[in-house]
C-alpha cells in the first residue's frame, strides 16, 4: 500500500472513532474537495476560462465544506449564502490587486524546478494566480462563516424575540471571540509552508528591499492578507445574512 492511501485510511479511522457519522462526512468533504480542486486544475489546463472555473468550483467547494461539516439547517444555509457573498467581494478585491502586483506564475527562485519545461503554454498565468488566491481562502471563509452563524443560531434559539440590532451587535461579539484563533490557524497554515522559502531568503542574504519586492514572497503574502481580509469581512457579512433571515421569517409569521 502506498503511504498516501494509508494515511488517508488512518484519518478516516480516527475521524469515525471521534466523530461517528459526522466524522465520516468530514472525511468525505475532504475527499470531494480534493477531487474538485484537481478537476479545476485539469479544466484550466484544457483552456476553460479560469474565471468561470473559479466561480463554479468556488461555490461547489464552499457548499461541500459547509453542508458536510454541520447538519443544522439554519447554520449551514446562512453560512453558505454569507460565504458566497464574501467570495464575490474578495474576487472584486483580488482582481485589481493581482494585476497591480503582477505576481503571476513563477519567480527566479523557481528556476531549478522549471528547467527543461516549456513555459509557452498559452494559458494566462495572471488568471491562474487569481484562481489560486481565491481557492486558498475558501476554507477560511467557510470555517469563519460557520462559526459565526452557529453562534448566532444558538443566540436566536435562546432568545427568539431578540431585536435585529442586538443580533448584529452579538454577531460582532462572536466574531471578536473567534478572530484571534482564526488568525492563528491562517498564520501557521501559511507560514509553516513558507519555512523553506524563508530559509532560502535568509540563507542567500536577501536585502529588505529585495525581500519586500520579491515576486514569490509577495504572491504568498498577498494570499495571507486576502485570507485575513476575507475572514474579517465574513463576520459582519454572516451577521447581516442572519439578520435578514430572521427578519424574513418574522415577517412571514406576521403575515400568517
Amino acid at each position, binding site marked *: 500500500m502506498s*503511504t*498516501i492511501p494509508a*494515511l*488517508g485510511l*488512518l*484519518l478516516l479511522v480516527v475521524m469515525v472513532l*471521534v*466523530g*461517528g457519522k*459526522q466524522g465520516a462526512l468530514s472525511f468525505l468533504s*475532504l475527499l470531494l474537495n480534493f477531487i474538485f*480542486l*484537481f478537476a479545476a486544475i*485539469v479544466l484550466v489546463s484544457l483552456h476553460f476560462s479560469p474565471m468561470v472555473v473559479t466561480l463554479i468550483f468556488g461555490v461547489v467547494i464552499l457548499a461541500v465544506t459547509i453542508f*458536510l*461539516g454541520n447538519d443544522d439547517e439554519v447554520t449551514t444555509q446562512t453560512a453558505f449564502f454569507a460565504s458566497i457573498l464574501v467570495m464575490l467581494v474578495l474576487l472584486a478585491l483580488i482582481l485589481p490587486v493581482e494585476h*497591480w502586483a*503582477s505576481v*503571476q*506564475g*513563477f519567480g527566479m527562485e523557481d528556476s531549478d*524546478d522549471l528547467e527543461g*519545461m*516549456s*513555459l*509557452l*503554454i*498559452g*494559458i494566462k498565468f495572471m488568471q*491562474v494566480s487569481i484562481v489560486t488566491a481565491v481557492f*486558498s481562502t475558501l*476554507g477560511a471563509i467557510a*470555517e469563519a462563516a460557520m*462559526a459565526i452563524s452557529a453562534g448566532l443560531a444558538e443566540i436566536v434559539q435562546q432568545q427568539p424575540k431578540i431585536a435585529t440590532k442586538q443580533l448584529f451587535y452579538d454577531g460582532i461579539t462572536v466574531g471578536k471571540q473567534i*478572530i484571534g*484563533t482564526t*488568525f*492563528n*490557524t491562517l498564520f*501557521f497554515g501559511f*507560514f*509553516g*509552508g513558507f*519555512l*523553506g522559502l*524563508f*530559509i532560502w531568503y*535568509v*540563507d*542567500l542574504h536577501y*536585502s529588505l*528591499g*529585495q525581500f*519586500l*519586492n520579491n*515576486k514569490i514572497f509577495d504572491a504568498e503574502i*498577498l494570499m495571507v492578507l486576502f485570507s485575513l*481580509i476575507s475572514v*474579517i*469581512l465574513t463576520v459582519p457579512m454572516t451577521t447581516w445574512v442572519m439578520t435578514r433571515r430572521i427578519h424574513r421569517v418574522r415577517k412571514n409569521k406576521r403575515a400568517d
Partner: protein
Amino acid sequence: MTKQVRRWVLPAGIILIGFLLVIGTHFDQALYKTPIVRITKVANGKPIKQVDQFKNVDHQTNQVLEGKLLNGRYQGKYVKLHNTYTTSGAYDQQYKVGQEVFVTLQKNGTVNLIQGLKRDVTLAFLVWLAVSLLFVIMRSSGMLALLSVCLNMVLFFLAITLNLMLHSSYFLLIFASLAVIFAALTLWLVLGPTRQMLVTFGATLVGTSVALLLSLIVMQLTGEKGIYYESMQYVTQVAPRPLFFAETLLGSLGAVMDESTDIVATLFQLREEQPDISGKTLFNSGRQIGRSIMGPLVNVLFLIFVADTFPMAILFLKNGNTWGYTFSMNMSLGVTQSLISGVGIVLAVPMASFLASLLMTRRKAK
C-alpha cells in the same frame, strides 16, 4: 466627549496615518540602493506566434521602453529598456507606462537588465487595508490578534536566523521547540495565564505529537511509497525530509490550537453554568463540539496547502505529463501534510475534552 474621541477619532487617526504611510512608499525610491526606473513610454512590437513541442500556442512580444531613473547617481536621466513578454506570462510580464522597475545599470549609466517590478506600494496598501478593517470591525480584539501574529512572525525569523547560525545542525530540535514556544505564547496572549490556558496548551501538544507519531509509524510501515521529497520547493541547506516535517508541524499548530481553544472554552463555560456536571458529560459535550469544527478546519488547511500548487500543476499538465505524475510531483507532499494535520486536528478533540473533564472534576472532588 472623551468617549467619542476614543471611539472614532483614534481609529480614524490611525487609518489616516496608515494611508499616509502607503502614499509614502510611493516616494521611497531614495531608500533603495538598486536603481529604479519609472516607465514613461512604451512601444510594443508585433506579437510573434510560438508553438512548443507539445503544440501549445503562445505569442511573444518585444517591448522597447523608455523611462526616467528615480534614484542613485544617474537620477533624472532617461534610459531605454528592452523587454519580452508572452501571453501566458509565466516568467515574464508586460510593462506599462507609470510602472516602476528595478534595473541593473552598466558603468556608463545604460540599462543592462530589468530585475523586476517595484511591488512595495501594493504590499503596503493591502497590509493597510487588512489592518484598518480589523481595527474598525474588531477593535481591541482585532489588535490583540494582530499583536499575536506579529510576535509569532518575529519569533519565526529569530528561529530561522538561529538555525542558520548553527548551520541547520539542530534543525528539527529548533523548530520543534519553536512550535512549543509558539503555542505557549499564542495561548497565553488569548487566554492569559489561566488553568484554561494550560488545558488548551496540553491538548494542543499531545494531539499534535500523537498525530505525528502515528503518521510516522504509518509512513515507516508503507516505506514512504509515493511521497516525493525531491519535489519539495525552495530547498537550500536543510534536507527535504526534516524540512517537510517541520513545515507540517508548524502548519497544523494553529488549527489544532484553534480547535482546542474552542472546546476547552465551551467546557469551562458549561461547568460555570452547571457546577455539578459530571466528567463524562463534559467529555461527551467536548466531543460534540469538536466533531462539528474538525471537518471545516481540515479543509482550511487542505486548501491552504494544496491550492498553492495550482500554477505548477498546470505547467506540468501542459508539458505532456500524466495526471498521476503531475499529482506525485506537485501535490503529494501537500496532500500528505493535510492528512497528517487532519489526524492532529481530530485527535485534539478527545484530548481537549479528556483533559478538561479530568482537571475540572478533580478540582470538584476537593
